[in-house]
């Protein structure tokens, strides 16, 4: 493809360097991965002194290589402290690092998707806008990236100074992993800087594809980094690769690949994306509300929509990943599972249910506001109150607790622990029905949004409309019917009903979206989407969305940490600090709120820093006609 220019050569070299940096740690670690059945150190020890241990999880035999988990004692040696609960300090450092880490992992994925859309979109003006959007995204994440590293350093120092015994043990087992983790940061930084600073130089043709490949590599590195960090948490919750006393048996792969590692990996990738989408949407909302010109408003309205759509798109599969995680927890230790959902931490899941409802209600509300900026969407306005009703009913059922908080007088008036009517909403059969109704309604709102300003001109449009109406109607009937059916069958059959319920919801999502886009091919437009002419309330809905995501992330992190109860490493290393108890729900909620508030204040600072640099940005940054944007093919 044309002359081999110097630029091309350098760019290919840069790409190879990135791939090399990515692979280098893996190659270096291969010898240690090979330590499996036989330890090369065996020659050092006398034959008679070789001790074998049995892996607590994999049940394989291995030669003991490490020291047993320390039996800590409450005191300044194992738990040095300030005049403050160390656990709370660590919680704060950890949570902030996780928030920022999640953000800087999600944004490059967005960049990759949006840059790719910019490359394949046929409309030149729109392609330029996508490209500029991707550039804006990566710019935001660059400042956040250094803050992530700083917070990571703070986290490690907190571990070292406040939990030396524990961290010493953990690092003795994960020594090579931690080195690889550090080395991969070199790869990540290098790739990120070349990707960002090389953006303008690699704008066209062959170089653009190299640039895109760099974004893929960047994301692979970032994802691998997260996987490595997840292994530490997986080990703490469901240890493997050590014997009952916590002695390392030489197989680093066993230590990495614990029972909960992959469920955590998947859940966190999806969670990152949803969270990142929320943060970017809130950024766009803030900029929208602060805009002074129509052009700015149009741009940020559009940005907010894309970020929200991506975030919610990744929100949809998140419950499956969460369900898989819970199943693996139950399969690993039934007791941990019951502690989570049936016992001590059960109330936190009601709070989670409340947050999930807020997420979906905000999304729906935003979509209805967004329909207000399209001519032709008025035909759906009269039905919105019924959607509100359905959403509210689904939400109320979803958040009804099984065990209610009540005074003893109310308990006596109720005649028992369970309310005869509302108690029935407190069990999974009803709740699955509730949440699936909520999600189906969100899909319906999305479909209405996508066809809001269009009239179908295909020959079979009447049939198509009737079919879509029927499909949604029977989807609701099926979901609610299955929920009611569950009460009349035994528990082990009822548990399986959630699968067809979810399949119903997903059927609506896939088939109705597909059918809608086919029906809207060549459709007559009643008017363009008037980007920027959206109400301020919708932007607050986006901010609500982002805040709910952030709060929920903090909550689930708290749950993940507390399920270990009084163990540093589950059943291997006991927590003998004075804080080996579970906080009250109220305290935990306050702490989470504090973390959320701190994160948002600090990220506003990051955004402000980003805007300082923006003063030098080229004026032609916003391509396209002021006020209105050409319709992107297939989606808005």
């Amino acid at each position, binding site marked *: 493809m044309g002359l081999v220019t110097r630029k091309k050569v350098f760019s290919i070299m840069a790409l190879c360097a990135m791939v090399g940096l990515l692979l280098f740690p893996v190659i270096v670690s291969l010898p240690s991965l090979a330590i499996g059945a036989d330890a090369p150190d065996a020659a050092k020890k006398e034959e008679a002194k070789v001790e074998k241990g049995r892996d607590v999880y994999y049940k394989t035999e291995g030669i003991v290589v490490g020291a047993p988990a320390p039996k800590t004692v409450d005191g300044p040696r194992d738990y040095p402290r300030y005049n403050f609960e160390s656990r709370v300090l660590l919680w704060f450092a950890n949570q902030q690092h996780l928030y920022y880490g999640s953000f800087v992992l999600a944004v490059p994925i967005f960049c990759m998707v949006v840059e790719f859309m910019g490359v394949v979109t046929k409309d030149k003006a729109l392609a330029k806008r996508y490209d500029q959007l991707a550039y804006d995204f990566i710019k935001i994440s660059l400042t956040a990236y250094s803050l992530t590293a700083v917070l990571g350093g703070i986290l490690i120092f907190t571990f070292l100074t406040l939990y030396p015994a524990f961290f010493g043990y953990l690092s003795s087992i994960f020594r090579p992993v931690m080195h690889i983790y550090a080395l991969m940061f070199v790869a990540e930084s290098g790739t990120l800087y070349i990707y960002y600073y090389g953006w303008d130089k690699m704008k066209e043709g062959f170089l653009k594809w190299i640039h895109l490949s760099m974004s893929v590599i960047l994301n692979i590195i970032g994802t691998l980094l997260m996987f490595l960090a997840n292994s530490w948490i997986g080990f703490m919750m469901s240890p493997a690769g050590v014997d009952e006393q916590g002695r390392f048996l030489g197989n680093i792969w066993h230590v990495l690949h614990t029972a909960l590692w992959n469920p955590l990996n998947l859940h966190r990738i999806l969670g990152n994306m949803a969270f990142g989408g929320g943060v970017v949407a809130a950024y766009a909302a803030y900029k929208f509300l602060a805009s002074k010109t129509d052009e700015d408003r149009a741009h940020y309205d559009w940005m907010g929509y894309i970020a929200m759509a991506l975030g919610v798109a990744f929100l949809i599969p998140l419950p499956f990943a969460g369900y898989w995680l819970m199943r693996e927890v139950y399969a690993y230790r039934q007791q941990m599972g019951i502690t989570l959902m049936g016992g001590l931490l059960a109330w936190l899941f009601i709070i989670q249910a409340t947050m999930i409802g807020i997420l979906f209600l905000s999304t729906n509300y935003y979509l209805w506001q967004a329909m207000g900026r399209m001519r032709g969407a008025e035909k759906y306005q009269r039905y919105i109150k019924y959607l509100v009703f359905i959403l509210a009913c689904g939400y109320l059922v979803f958040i009804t607790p099984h065990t209610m908080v009540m005074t003893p007088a109310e308990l006596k008036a109720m005649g028992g622990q369970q309310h005869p009517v509302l108690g029935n909403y407190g069990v999974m059969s009803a709740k699955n029905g509730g949440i699936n109704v909520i999600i189906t309604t969100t899909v319906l709102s999305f479909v209405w949004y996508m066809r809001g300003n269009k009239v179908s001109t295909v020959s079979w449009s*009447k*049939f198509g409309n*009737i*079919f879509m*109406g*029927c*499909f949604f*109607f*029977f*989807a609701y*009937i*099926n979901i609610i019917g*299955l929920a009611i*059916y569950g009460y*009349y*069958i*035994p528990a*082990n*059959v009822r548990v*399986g*009903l959630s*699968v*067809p319920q979810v*399949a*119903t919801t997903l*059927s609506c999502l896939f088939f109705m979206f597909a059918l809608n886009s086919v029906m809207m091919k060549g459709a007559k437009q009643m008017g363009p989407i008037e980007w920027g002419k959206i109400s301020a309330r919708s932007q607050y809905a986006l901010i609500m969305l982002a805040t709910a995501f952030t709060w929920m992330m903090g909550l689930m992190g708290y749950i993940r940490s507390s399920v270990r109860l009084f163990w540093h490493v589950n059943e291997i290393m006991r927590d003998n600090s004075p804080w080996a108890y579970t906080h009250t729900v109220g305290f935990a909620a306050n702490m989470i709120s504090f973390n959320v508030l701190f994160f948002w204040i600090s990220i506003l600072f990051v955004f402000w820093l980003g805007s300082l640099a923006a003063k030098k940005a080229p004026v032609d940054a916003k391509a396209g006609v002021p006020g209105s944007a050409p319709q992107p093919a297939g989606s808005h």
Partner: protein
Amino acid sequence: MGQNILYGIISVAICVGYFLMVDHFLMDMQGLDFWYMFRK
């Protein structure tokens, strides 16, 4: 009008059939019996 009713009937048939199949086969895939209550 008549054509609309025809469209409606076809749609209902397709949708009901589809969802019943989803229910039956997804339960079957897990080794469970969707028609439990009716088998009594």
